[in-house]
């Protein structure tokens, strides 16, 4: 570095480090954004899902429909292998599975009455739901993340694997059927709906316009008084014997209202399970084995990708997207400040009249913007890595698995260098061309949008890395980072990526130096 470049660089470094706006974009945003995204948005989304999954829904149904529905759930509960649930539940493993013995304790409380009478069964379900729904929703329904799944995985014997699979299904059946199907469903008689009917028949969705109380029911769903309207016209009992008949459950709901949608999925889940149980019984009645229903089955456990590869296929594209975004953010503000900012502050002319060459001035400024961009990108990556290690809830983290060795980590981190150089060169050229801060912002902001596509290349499913992809600047960085994280190390592509990105950066930098030498650019007014 010549004396001139170093002098310009050091001055810009001091100037930039004293600039709060740049520091925010260079240091604060990349450092805090990732944890913010992971923690904030992630937990908000999970909370909303959890909240919906835990909220009771109110379904309008006449007395007969209510009875038929309860009976259907009860029959299915008796039909389902409760013994299996109870058996596994008593094992210490299951107690671990669902947290501190929640299901174990729960099942001990099943009163004998509840196994005979649907109404008693519902009462018990509701009492149990109030205590256990938090554990169940958290551990079973939302992705089956159990407290000790990692410990369980440490011993992946076929017996353990099989037990876990069956346990997961059994718990899910039990949960879907009883808790979501009964414990979290309140019924109301349509005649007791308090919402005033204000919809004319012609305004009603066609399906409800056919119903006598259609306007009232529609209004009640819209006003959130109820979440759906159920009609069961057919007798659901002894369907196993009446083997040629299909009963029908009608459920009106509004898919654009989250809780109404949730109500639909609860009812749907119950009906599907019940139907499957009845079909199994029909098959047995015909003296057929359960294999009658499954002619050909796909064997499980044939996926050759490692868990690490699966995780990185899903998440590996996120890392380059973030570090390209942070490299962009880290470059844009200093570029505007060091180029257009000099013009706006009327300091450019005095700088140009010092004995250092314009190339040296351009290179000194470029070096600072490049450093800022690189620091922002690396901070972003570091912050993301630490967030994954320390901030992601253990239950979610246990499902993710990735091994990134030091060499791969460094190789991927080094991929931030060429984009940072390209951004620095290009942005400084644009910025010095602009007459003012605002004009530079107007030119550079749309470039952020233009960056999104190449940065997201790693997240586009089906896009495979090849020599052509490795030759496209930025796209190659995004795709290659993901491949490296997945463990597919290909140094040829790596060299190509560096080569093409540096060529692009060199063109940007040459253009930048060219702009610094043009009188009409420097003295544009």
């Amino acid at each position: 570095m010549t004396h001139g470049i170093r002098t310009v660089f050091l001055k810009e470094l001091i100037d930039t480090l004293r600039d709060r706006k740049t520091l925010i974009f260079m240091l604060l945003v990349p450092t805090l954004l990732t944890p913010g995204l992971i923690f904030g948005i992630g937990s908000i989304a999970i909370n909303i899902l959890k909240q919906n999954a835990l909220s009771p829904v109110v379904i309008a149904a006449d007395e007969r429909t209510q009875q038929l529905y309860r009976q259907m759930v009860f029959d299915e509960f008796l039909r389902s292998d409760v013994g299996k649930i109870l058996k596994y539940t008593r094992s210490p493993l299951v107690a671990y599975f669902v947290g501190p013995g929640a299901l174990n304790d729960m099942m001990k409380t099943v009163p004998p009455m509840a196994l005979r009478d649907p109404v008693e069964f519902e009462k018990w379900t509701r009492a149990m739901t109030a205590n256990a729904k938090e554990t169940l929703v958290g551990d079973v329904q939302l992705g089956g993340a159990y407290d000790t799944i990692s410990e369980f995985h440490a011993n992946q014997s076929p017996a353990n694997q099989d037990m876990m699979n069956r346990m997961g299904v059994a718990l899910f059946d039990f949960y879907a059927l009883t808790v979501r199907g009964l414990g979290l469903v309140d019924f109301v008689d349509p005649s007791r709906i308090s919402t005033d009917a204000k919809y004319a028949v012609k305004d009603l969705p066609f399906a409800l316009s056919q119903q006598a109380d259609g306007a009232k029911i529609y209004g009640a769903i819209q006003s959130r008084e109820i979440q759906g309207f159920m009609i069961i016209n057919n007798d659901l009992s002894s369907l196993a014997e009446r083997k040629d008949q299909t009963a029908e459950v009608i459920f009106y709901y509004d898919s654009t209202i989250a809780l109404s949608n949730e109500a639909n999925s609860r009812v749907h889940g119950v009906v599907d399970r019940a139907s499957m149980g009845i079909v199994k019984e029909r098959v047995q009645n015909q003296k057929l084995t359960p294999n009658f229903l499954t002619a050909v089955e796909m064997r499980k456990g044939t996926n050759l990708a490692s868990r690490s590869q699966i995780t990185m296929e899903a998440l590996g594209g996120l890392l380059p997207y973030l570090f390209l975004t942070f490299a962009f953010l880290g470059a844009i503000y200093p570029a505007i400040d060091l180029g257009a900012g000099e013009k706006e502050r009327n300091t450019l002319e005095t700088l140009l009249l010092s004995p250092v060459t314009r190339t040296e001035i351009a290179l000194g400024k470029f070096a600072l913007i490049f450093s800022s961009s690189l620091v922002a990108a690396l901070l972003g990556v570091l912050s993301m890595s630490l967030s994954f290690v320390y901030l992601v809830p253990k239950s979610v983290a246990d499902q993710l698995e990735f091994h990134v060795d030091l060499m791969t980590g460094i190789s991927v981190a080094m991929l931030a260098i060429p984009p940072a150089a390209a951004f620095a060169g290009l942005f400084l050229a644009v910025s010095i061309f602009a007459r003012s801060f605002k004009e530079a912002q107007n030119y550079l902001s749309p470039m952020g949008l233009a960056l999104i596509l190449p940065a997201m290349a790693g997240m586009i499913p089906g896009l495979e890395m090849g020599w052509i992809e490795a030759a496209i600047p930025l796209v190659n960085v995004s795709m290659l980072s993901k491949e490296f994280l997945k463990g597919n190390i290909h140094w040829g592509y790596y060299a190509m990526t560096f080569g093409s990105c540096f060529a692009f950066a060199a063109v940007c930098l040459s253009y930048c130096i060219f702009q610094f030498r043009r009188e009409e650019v420097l003295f544009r007014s």
Partner: protein
Amino acid sequence: MIEVENLTKSFRDRRKGILHAVKGVTFASKPGEVFGLLGPNGAGKTTALRIISTALKPTEGRGTVMGFDCAREPEKVRQSIGFLAANTGLYGRLTPRETLRYFGSLFGMGHRQLDSRIEELAFAFAMTDFLDRPCDKLSTGMKQKVNIARSVIHSPEAMILDEPTTGLDVLTSRHIVEFVRKCRNDQKTVLLSTHIMSEVKRLCDRVGIIHQGQLRFVGTLTEFEAAHGSDLEEAFINIVGGPVP
């Protein structure tokens, strides 16, 4: 010594075609003398000064500063001149000391040399009190002092001042006026542009009147008065009002 000969600068304008900002300008400014380039706004004063200070390259003709050619030896010319304009800005987040150090370093000065030069200038321009305060927090007068100090950090032989008092109040202007007089006393070559008649009268030994890119008169003030009468303003309007010869 600043000499320009047949200096011409043309710009290409998309709508108006080729424009001559400066055309065939010739004059010389000697050490120990203040040469004033007087002309209305848009006359070509700033363009002429920018060519001499090497910011722009001439289309035709040549300029030399202390014997160095402005187009061919720009680095040497820049070492020899100090440039100051009223609207010259400062880096707000740097202190005057850092500003002076930055420019001194750009001019190739060593640490020790710079430290003593900064102390010397701080004393000379009474800047000691605010030498380590960010420039953003300084008053206009203080900023102007910093700017003057910046322009002479490398002890240039020649000073080029582009409308140095425009927009400044009386008190701040006084710093400039005193500075110009000191430069003359120190036997420096001073070239300044202005459109203010009284400033010419107060400061300049010789004057060049420029209008529409061309010099209309070059000579001492006495010669000017002898040729055009003692009312400078009237004479100036007569000159710039007439057609280009």
